């Protein structure tokens, strides 16, 4: 119904006030702060430094290392999304006990947080943790000697990235802390909201289309490729967008609770880097500059994904 602006604003007011004070204002405030040398431990000595913070961070090797870490953690995303889709396809097969499976598979993502991270820290313990115990038992049964991964204690990774250096080396090739966090992330998210979104989208795939394809002699896989997958494109697009936005600013909780950002900074993401600069070194100005760079990265990646990804999503 049409109402006066005054009435409309009155409804909006409680939320709008909070929005202005805690979101809109802070965005500009933080942009201003990024141009100063504000340090909470030196009150009254703040001065305008122009782009000095940005120059400092772009020349800081650590910033680039943490940027690489942040991108490395995105490697888990395709696997997590494919896993969610696979689960949704399984649950969509009109089986008995669907609700029970769905509830069970959703539990890790619903209860995720510090408690589960403390649990995984114990699971990954190289000596008494059950994961290595299981690997050792398997290798004994199969008579295959195996060097079990050191998980959270190791800087190794599947790309062979060097610790504290930008580069790759054969000796770092293996499985370490970064991969451990990725595996945990897949376990936590695979049965979560993405799976439910795919499940909802799958029930909307027109059945006569898949049936027509079957009558034409298409195999199950061909049918999935040609009919189901294209009609899931908008859902996939949404899931990737949210995954990129969340993933690029992620890794904070894991680093704070499980690894302290180590070993040798290998699990420090940009989000954790900003936290340590702001709340451990109290360099508010510098931390704001890093936060704005992170914002710019998120923005650019999302925009690129929209520009190129949405064309694909509608073309298919």
């Amino acid at each position: 119904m049409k109402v006066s602006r005054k009435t409309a604003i009155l409804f909006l007011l409680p939320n709008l006030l909070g929005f202005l004070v805690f979101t809109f204002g802070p965005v500009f405030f933080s942009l201003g702060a990024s141009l100063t040398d504000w340090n909470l431990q030196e009150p009254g000595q703040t001065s305008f430094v122009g782009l000095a913070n940005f120059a400092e961070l772009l020349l800081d090797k650590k910033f680039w290392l943490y940027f690489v870490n942040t991108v490395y953690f995105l490697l888990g995303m395709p696997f997590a999304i494919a896993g969610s889709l696979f689960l949704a396809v399984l649950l969509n097969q009109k089986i008995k006990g669907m609700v029970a499976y769905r509830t069970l598979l959703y539990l890790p993502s619903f209860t995720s947080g510090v408690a589960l991270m403390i649990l995984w820290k114990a699971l990954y313990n190289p000596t008494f943790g059950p994961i290595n115990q299981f690997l050792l038992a398997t290798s004994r049964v199969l008579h295959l000697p195996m060097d079990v991964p050191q998980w959270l204690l190791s800087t190794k990774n599947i790309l062979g990235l060097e610790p504290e250096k930008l580069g790759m080396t054969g000796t770092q090739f293996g499985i370490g802390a970064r991969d451990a966090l990725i595996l945990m992330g897949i376990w936590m998210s695979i049965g979560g909201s993405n799976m439910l979104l795919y499940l909802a989208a799958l029930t909307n795939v027109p059945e006569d289309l898949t049936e027509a394809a079957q009558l034409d002699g298409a195999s199950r896989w061909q049918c999935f490729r040609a009919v189901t997958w294209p009609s899931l494109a908008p859902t996939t697009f949404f899931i990737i967008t949210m995954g990129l936005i969340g993933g690029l600013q992620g890794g904070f909780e894991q680093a704070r609770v499980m690894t302290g950002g180590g070993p040798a900074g290998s699990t420090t993401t940009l989000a954790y880097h900003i936290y340590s600069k702001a709340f451990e070194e109290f360099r508010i100005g510098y931390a704001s500059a890093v936060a704005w760079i992170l914002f710019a990265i998120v923005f650019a990646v999302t925009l690129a994904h929209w520009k190129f990804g949405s064309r694909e999503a509608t073309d298919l």
Partner: protein
Amino acid sequence: MKQSKWMSVLVIACLVVLSITTLAPFLWMILTSLKPLQEVEQSSILPSAANPGNYSEVFQQVNFSRYYANSVFIAAWVTLLTLLTSSLAAFSFARLKWSGRDSLFKLYLATMMIPGVVTMIPNYTIMVKLHLLDSFTGLIVPASFSAFGTFLLRQFMLTIPPALDEAAYIDGATPWQIFAEVALPLSRPGLITLAVFTFMGNYGSFFWPLVIVKSDQLRTLPIGLMYFDSMYGRTTNLLMAASVMSIVPPALLFILLQKHLVKGIQLGAVKG
């Protein structure tokens, strides 16, 4: 599509394997929480005897009941305030026509892309200035305005047939009455979803309490667990007992409400 027999067997087999992978860590957590410490280090699978004493031990080591109470208290307040502010704003965006509405709504949507760390630092300094560090107000108020909640409830309110509130309007009802008597009752599924996810998000919230809370009296469950872990990290059995206690309430909540929640997530694409 017709299901061949071996295909259904394959589907069930995959689901069973994946369910076991999902459950195994939880099972290990429960078994470990019942073991004496030396059995954890010997990696025995089952505890030689159930040892529920670990659970009461947690309450003696740290102020665990206080952390519980704080988490529930804060999450309940934030949920109440978020539902109030979001539903009012959503009504204005979805059911009222006024100039400037759609551009303001787009601005709301755009802010959902801003990384939390960007606003976190200024918000922290606001709390310092207002002397709200280490206070319940500082923990509750900044968390109570959700652009996402506004978006979610707007999507629900858009599905209400316009004829309903137009009829009430013609009968002389004020917008406030229409909000309370038409829009709110009809958005119940959306309100339930938002309530549960807001509650859960704040029950498990980590970043904001971490920077705001200084004293033990104000620690929430996640913060308390983290300090417990850093102080008594070697007592894996006690840590697991504490972790079990902190995830059982949300797990039960989810199992009880899962029907509503699944619908809400699928409609509004809630981040979980």
